[in-house]
C-alpha cells in the first residue's frame, strides 16, 4: 500500500534521526562527559572529541564517594521491597476488582486513580508528620512504605484489565470441584496471569526506582539509607562539582534498570499498552 518515494524515505530517516537525537542526546553527553578528565571538561571552546579521554572516572568514583556501592545497593533494595510490598496489595485487590461486583466498585477505583493525581508532593506533609511521630523518619521504611502506596493504584489498574481477560470458566470449574477462593487465586489465576504480573512487576520496579528521589530527600537524612538518585548529589560539593565522576556514577546507576528493561522490554511495552487501550 503506497510505497514511499526515495525523497520521502530520506525525509523519514532524517526525522527519526532528529527525534532520536532529542531522546538520546543527554545520555550521549553524560557518557562523553564521564570519559573526559576533569580539567578537560572546563575547556573552551567545546570539543566533541579529544585524545585524553579515558574510563578513569569510573575507577575514581568509588574513592570519591565511598558509599556509592551502598547507594546503588539501597536503590535496588528499596525498589525490590517496594515492588514486593506493592504486589502483595495489588494482586488480591486487582482480582477483586476484576471478578466481584460490589457496592462502590467504580467509585473506589476512581479514587485509586485519583491518588495518582494527588501524588507525592501534595501528601508529603501529613506523611512527614506521621512518619516523624512514629519514629520512622530516616529508615528504609520511610521510603518504601509511601513508595509502595503511590504505586498501588496504577498496579491495580494495569493488572485488573489483564485478569479480566482470563476466561472465567476455568475458575468456575475449579469452584465446582470444591476449590476455595484463595486456592483458585493461587493455583489457577496467578499462573495464568504471569505475563501480566511481569508487566506490573517491572513497571512497579521502574516506578519505584524512579521516584526515590523525592521520598529520599524528604524522609531520610541518614547517608547509609540513601538511594542512588539522592546520594549521587554528593559529587556536587559546596565549592565545585566533580562533573566527570558525577556522570560516571549516573551511568553506573542506571545500568541495573536498563538491564532489567532490556530483558523484559518486549513484555513491558506490549503489556502496558494493551492493558491501557483495551482495559
Amino acid at each position, binding site marked *: 500500500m503506497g510505497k*514511499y518515494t526515495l525523497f520521502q524515505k530520506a525525509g*523519514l530517516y532524517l526525522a527519526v534521526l532528529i*527525534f532520536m537525537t532529542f*531522546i*538520546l542526546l543527554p545520555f550521549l553527553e553524560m557518557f562523553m562527559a564521564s570519559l573526559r578528565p576533569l580539567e578537560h571538561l572546563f575547556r573552551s571552546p567545546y570539543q566533541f572529541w579529544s585524545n585524553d579521554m579515558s574510563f578513569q572516572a569510573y575507577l575514581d568514583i568509588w574513592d570519591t564517594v565511598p558509599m556509592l556501592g551502598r547507594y546503588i545497593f539501597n536503590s535496588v533494595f528499596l525498589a525490590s521491597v517496594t515492588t514486593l510490598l506493592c504486589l502483595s496489595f495489588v494482586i488480591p485487590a486487582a482480582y477483586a476488582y476484576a471478578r466481584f461486583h460490589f457496592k462502590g466498585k467504580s467509585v473506589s477505583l476512581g479514587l485509586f486513580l485519583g491518588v495518582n493525581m494527588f501524588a507525592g508532593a*501534595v501528601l508529603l506533609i501529613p506523611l512527614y508528620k506521621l512518619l516523624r511521630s512514629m519514629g520512622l523518619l530516616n529508615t528504609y521504611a520511610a521510603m518504601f512504605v509511601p513508595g509502595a502506596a503511590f504505586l498501588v493504584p496504577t498496579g491495580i489498574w494495569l493488572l485488573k484489565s489483564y485478569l479480566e481477560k482470563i476466561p472465567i470458566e476455568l475458575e468456575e470449574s475449579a469452584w465446582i470441584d470444591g476449590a476455595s477462593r484463595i486456592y483458585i487465586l493461587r493455583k489457577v489465576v496467578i499462573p495464568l496471569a504471569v505475563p501480566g504480573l511481569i508487566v506490573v512487576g517491572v513497571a512497579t520496579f521502574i516506578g519505584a526506582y524512579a521516584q526515590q*528521589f523525592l521520598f529520599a530527600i524528604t524522609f531520610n537524612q541518614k547517608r547509609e539509607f540513601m538511594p542512588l538518585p539522592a546520594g549521587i548529589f554528593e559529587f556536587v560539593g559546596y565549592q565545585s562539582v566533580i562533573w566527570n565522576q558525577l556522570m560516571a556514577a549516573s551511568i553506573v546507576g542506571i545500568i541495573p*534498570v536498563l538491564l532489567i528493561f532490556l530483558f523484559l522490554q518486549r513484555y513491558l511495552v506490549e503489556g502496558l499498552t494493551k492493558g491501557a487501550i483495551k482495559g
Partner: protein
Amino acid sequence: MFLIVGWPLLETIRLSFTNAGLGGEQYIGWDNYEKLLNNRKYPGIVGRTFYWMFLSVLLKMIIGTIGALLLNAKIRGKAAFRVMVMPPWIVPMAIGCIGWLWLYNGHFGILAGVLMRLGIIDGPFEFLAYKSSAFYSAVVTDVWIGTPMISIFILAAMQSVPDDLYEAAYVDGASRWYRFRRITIPQIMPVIVTMSLLSAIWTFNSFEVIWILTEGGPLGATTTMIIDTYKMAIANYKFGYGATRALMVVLSLAVFSLLYLILLNKINERYKTK
C-alpha cells in the same frame, strides 16, 4: 490502603486550619487561607504553573504524536528505535536531570558549545541562570521525560487501527496526508484525550525536574505550585501554611480536570449531532 492515601488528605485539610510547625499546633481558622489570598506573589505562581503545564503538555503531545508516527512508519530498524525511545522514561528522573544539568552548562555544555561554534551566540550562555531561559529549559527537560511514554501509548493506539480502513481509503485514492487526517487522527483521538489529561496532571505535579535543575529559581522564575508547597512545608517546617498550599494544588487540579471533562463531553455531543 485508605490509611496511607485517604487519611493524609483529611489530615492535610485539618492541618491547613492550624499553625502547625515543628512545635505544637493550634487551630487558627481561616487565617492561612487569608494569608495566602493576600500574598501578592501567589497569583503569579498559580499562573506560572498553568502556563508550565499547558506548554509542556502541548509539546509532549505534539512531539509524542510525531514520534509515534515515525515509529509506526515502515522503515528499517524500527524495532530497535522503539526500544531506544524508552530510556528517558525508564531512567530515574533525578539522573536524567543530571545529564541535562550538564547540557545546559553555559561554558562547557554541548548546547552552548554548538551554538557558539555556529556563531549563534558569541559567548558562554548559562541556560539556567536567566529567568526566562531557565523556565523554558526546564520545560524542554520535562518534555524530554514525558514524551517517550506518550509516543509508546499513541503508537499502540495507531497499531490497533484496523488495516482495512487504510486499504479502503487507499483504493479510493486518498493521499497519505488525507488518510492520516481522516482515519488515524479520529481513531486515536480517545487515547490522545486520555493521555493529555493524565500528562497534564503529572506535569502539574512534576517536582524533580524543576527541583534538580533550578530549585525554583532564579528569582522564583521556575517556582510552580508544587515547588512552592514543598519549600513552605518541608524546607521551612511550616506544615500548617504548607498544607493550605497543598490543598490549593489539589483544588486547582480537580477544577481543571472537571473543566476538561465537561469540555470533552460537550465536544463529543456536538460530534454526535452532526
